[in-house]
């Protein structure tokens, strides 16, 4: 958590990253940037999914619909914040010549997506019966 707070400061102060270590090969930085963008697209897809649940499942009970939509929107927010945090950590590790950081987030996100998918199946069946 303290590391996260320190990283948040770096998000807004680009020079702090620049001062550390050596500038890596520009191609490594670009690869890191593309990874960041891929995570950002994942976040945008989750947010779009939240809007889609709200719009295209009108027969669902209000609680389920809003709950699912908010869960997807929250997952999108988490995913995008984590994207920039991971990008900063990778950038710093490359400058210092350390190993790239590992992360539990991909496993966590896949579990959340799986749970949401199962919930959707259940909800659609219940909605069909009721």
């Amino acid at each position, binding site marked *: 958590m303290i590391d996260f707070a320190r990283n948040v400061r770096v998000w807004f102060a680009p020079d702090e990253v620049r001062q550390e270590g050596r500038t890596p090969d*520009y191609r490594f930085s670009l690869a890191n940037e593309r990874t960041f963008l891929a995570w950002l697209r994942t976040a945008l897809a989750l947010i779009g999914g939240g*809007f889609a649940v709200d719009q295209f499942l009108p027969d669902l009970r209000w609680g389920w619909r809003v709950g699912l939509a908010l869960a997807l929107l929250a997952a999108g927010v988490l995913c995008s914040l984590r*994207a920039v945090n991971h990008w900063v950590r990778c950038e710093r590790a490359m400058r210092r010549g350390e190993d790239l950081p590992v992360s539990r987030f991909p496993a966590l996100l896949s579990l959340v997506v799986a749970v949401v998918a199962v919930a959707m199946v259940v909800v659609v069946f219940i909605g069909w019966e009721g």
Partner: protein
Amino acid sequence: MSEAAAAERDPGLQPERTRLAWRRTTLSGTVCAVLAVKTALHGGPTPATLVACALCCALWLGLLSLAHHRIRALTSSDTPAALTSRHATAAVLCTVATAVCGAALVF
């Protein structure tokens, strides 16, 4: 093109791939913005939903302009500078603000 210039270019086309990644991101952002506007205008236009709608459009334009600037930087040189953290944070904040708008709309 001379042989020297051809040798200077990165054979892995990294700047081009990064440019296209930004393009794909703006496309995802566009889909998101369209869905947000549809949600906002679903229950008929009221002042609150119109404000949310305008905000989503502004955030979408913000993301587009960020991508535009980065793409310009990527195409202007053969060894482009790394992304600045301010730029990355701005893109993420656009995304987060869209989600917050969405949460307000869904409620």
